[in-house]
């Protein structure tokens, strides 16, 4: 720690020091721990001897411009943590001002003090949450950290490209935030440019992920032996590569519309394709519609790694192999394929030319098949298992619950004609928050509780974690279930014109209830933040490599892993990823890397 602070004192720009500070606290802490860990084990060699490939260069080259996949993965996770709290503050402002427009909240009210600002709040909330939390955390954060570890690769296929994508994402985050603070017209341009940068970075990451998973697998790690998380990351990378490039084309068109006055999405085209009741002032509507345009594409990109996490965690904590693992892999591929096709229909419906609603409807409904396969697999894995109920599994089960209830309301949406969608945005909002936003966040939290010992060498606090889980779980249902109901009421009022005045009287109190729910939920996230920061420095130490008794390769190395991951020896894989409850073996699991002649036998 001492050397780190003396190095900080070197003349550096203020901004560089701010960024350094965040990275350093984590790295310094983990290094110090590893050092102490080594000392407690009476290892006599110097603590730096296990970092032969890391030259003692300047701090900037070691932390800011390190091409180590673990440093980059943690960087994405920090970005996601910052963004999720920013985005939550915005949703808090939106809901509070919806119920009490005149209320004055210190700091936050200034964010939405004019109509234009208020209308841009949903956009910024959505873009931060979708791009920097739902895309960044499960795929780029955990993926960068764990994918090379799980396949025994030591490094991503193109480390420098990876570093470039990370910094492009940081630039894009700054750009999006700046767009909110700039004047509306310039703001839109900056926002679209930031999206373009993010998409280009995501494309590079997607190529990196696919190549790493295809070509850099360890000896013996055949495709059927890949952990489901790796499958999910791979399918997601391929899906992301396809849809991000389409989005990039659309964004490039939008950007050139604004910069060079081209006519791809000109206002005349845009307003002609809208229903007649849309307000004549196109600006706030344009903001909102662009947001929906992107959100549809991202649903499957956000969900796929979460399916992988949940299958992985449920198998590990039920101590049973994944039920029908091959079928689950096929289901993941099907989600990627059909999700891509559904999105294709959305692209034409939201700016160019409405395609047949029937095709969209059939495709959206056919997503139900892989979803049911996944659900059945999770339940059958849990069936008659000796389940270890810790916070990580609770969050995974919370994901299953949210996915199920959100998916049920999705059946209604798949049947609805496109034209009636504008009438009940509350229903859509409730549905996709439940199934995408909150469910994916639950899966990310489950993954964080599971891999936190590997990332930082300490555990998160279990009792705080369980309190956080139950408060959040109750909170999100209180927030998003009434929203469905609001949407149904407003939809039926518009369609039928029946006498709904008695039901309409309930809308105000329901809105207040939702706002109360969101305050409680955000408060519960404070517990999480405290738990996270406290455990980072004071959490219970994890002495062994494999505290969860899991099978995959990342648990065969020290926690946190050394810079070159596997040290001098090459990892070799001998079996599938979910060998739990094998008969005739001393323990109830066999790690993937243990040679057959070294597996301890039961007597």
């Amino acid at each position, binding site marked *: 720690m001492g050397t780190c602070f003396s190095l900080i004192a070197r003349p550096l720009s203020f901004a560089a020091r701010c960024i350094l500070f965040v990275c350093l606290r984590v790295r310094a802490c983990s290094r110090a721990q590893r050092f102490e860990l080594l000392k407690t084990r009476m290892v006599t060699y110097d603590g730096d001897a296990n970092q032969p490939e890391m030259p003692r260069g300047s701090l900037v080259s070691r932390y800011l411009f390190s091409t180590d996949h673990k440093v980059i993965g943690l960087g994405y996770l920090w970005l996601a943590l910052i963004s999720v709290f920013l985005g939550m503050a915005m949703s808090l402002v939106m809901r509070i001002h919806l119920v009490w427009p005149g209320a004055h909240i210190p700091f936050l009210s200034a964010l939405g003090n004019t109509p234009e600002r208020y209308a841009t709040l949903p956009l910024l909330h959505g873009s931060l949450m979708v791009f920097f939390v739902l895309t960044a955390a499960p795929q780029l954060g955990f993926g960068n950290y764990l994918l090379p570890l799980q396949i025994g690769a030591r490094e991503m296929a193109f480390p420098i490209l990876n570093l470039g994508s990370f910094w492009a994402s940081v630039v894009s985050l700054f750009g999006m935030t700046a767009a909110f603070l700039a004047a509306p017209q310039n703001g839109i341009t900056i926002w679209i440019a930031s999206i373009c940068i993010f998409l280009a970075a995501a494309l590079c990451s997607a190529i990196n992920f696919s190549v790493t998973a295809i*070509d850099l697998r360890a000896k013996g790690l055949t495709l059927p032996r890949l952990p489901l998380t790796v499958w999910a990351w791979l399918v997601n990378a391929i899906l992301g590569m396809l849809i991000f490039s389409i989005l990039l084309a659309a964004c490039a068109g939008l950007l050139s519309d604004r910069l060079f006055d081209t006519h791809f999405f000109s206002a005349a085209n845009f307003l002609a394709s809208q229903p007649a009741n849309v307000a004549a002032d196109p600006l706030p509507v344009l903001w909102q519609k662009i947001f929906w345009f992107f959100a549809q594409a991202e649903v499957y990109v956000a969900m796929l790694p979460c399916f992988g996490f949940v299958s992985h965690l449920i198998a590990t904590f039920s101590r049973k192999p994944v039920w029908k693992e091959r079928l689950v892999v096929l289901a993941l591929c099907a989600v990627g394929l059909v999700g891509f096709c559904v999105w294709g229909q959305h692209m034409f419906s939201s700016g*160019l030319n409405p395609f047949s609603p029937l095709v969209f409807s059939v495709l959206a409904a056919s997503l139900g098949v892989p979803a049911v396969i996944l659900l059945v697999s999770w339940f059958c894995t849990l069936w008659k298992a000796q389940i270890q109920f810790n916070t990580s599994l609770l969050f995974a089960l919370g994901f299953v619950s949210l996915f199920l209830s959100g998916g049920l309301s999705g059946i209604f949406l798949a049947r609805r004609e496109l034209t009636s969608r504008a009438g009940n945005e509350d229903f859509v909002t409730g549905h996709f928050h439940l199934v995408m936003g909150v469910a994916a966040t639950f899966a990310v939290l489950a993954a964080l509780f599971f891999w936190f010992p590997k990332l930082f060498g300490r555990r998160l606090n279990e009792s705080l974690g369980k309190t956080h889980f139950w408060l959040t779980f109750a909170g999100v249902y209180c927030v998003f279930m009434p929203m469905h109901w609001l949407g149904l009421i407003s939809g039926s009022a518009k369609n039928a014109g029946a006498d709904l005045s008695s039901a309409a009287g309930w809308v105000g109190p329901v809105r207040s209830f939702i706002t109360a729910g969101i305050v409680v939920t955000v408060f519960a996230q404070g517990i999480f933040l405290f738990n996270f920061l406290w455990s980072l420095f004071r959490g219970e130490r994890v002495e062994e490599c494999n505290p969860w008794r899991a099978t995959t390769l990342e648990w065969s190395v020290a926690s946190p892993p050394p810079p070159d991951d596997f040290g001098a020896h090459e990892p070799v894989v001998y079996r599938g990823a979910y060998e739990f409850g094998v008969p005739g073996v001393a323990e109830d699991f066999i790690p993937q890397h243990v040679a057959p002649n070294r597996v301890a036998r039961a007597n």
Partner: protein
Amino acid sequence: MPGTIAPPDIELVIEDSRGGGGGGGRPPDGGDDGDDNDYDRQRGRQPASPRRFSTAIAIAMVSILMFFMALASAFLVLHHSSHMWVAVHLPRILWANTAVLIGSSFLLERARVRLSLGDDRGFRRLWLVTTVMGFLFVAGQLVAWRQLAVQGVYIASNQASSFFYIFTGAHGVHLMGGVAALLFVLLRNFEKSQISRPLAAEITSYYWHFMDGLWVFLFVLLYLGK
């Protein structure tokens, strides 16, 4: 026998404790792509499988194709539905540019044949000509832009002209990446590189032919969109 102690360097026998579950029956490197990785891994600690470059270029080509397909579908939809569509009169020099680009693809293949025969001088000469033809194509596209601008057709004039400039511009940018790759193969010292010259030339050739085919597709699209 699982219980006996086998020497560690004999080919590993995989125990199949679950009867086919998770593919346990396969030998570690049988039928998979691990074979050529292993040699590299035993030499150095950095797992630098050269195969990753060709995989990456294949995936990148799919990605670029999706980018242009999105623009092309927007082109087709707007072409059929728009009331303000004014066709662009394509400059004649585009035919010459197309010929130059297709010719460069042929020359690049000839150069690779020379390389495989070990004729380094012939390879360099043909490769250089290919690179020059790439530059010629880009210059020809700029001339086409210039001719349109003289006619008063700018990027903001109408939808068709927007598409013309965006298609040619985006293709030109991607093609410049190909030219950079050509120069890389020509000028790079491959002594201490992770990749050999024939492999780099092969990967560059994939990308170059792809750019060639993409241009032909875009040209046909623009021609039919008149």
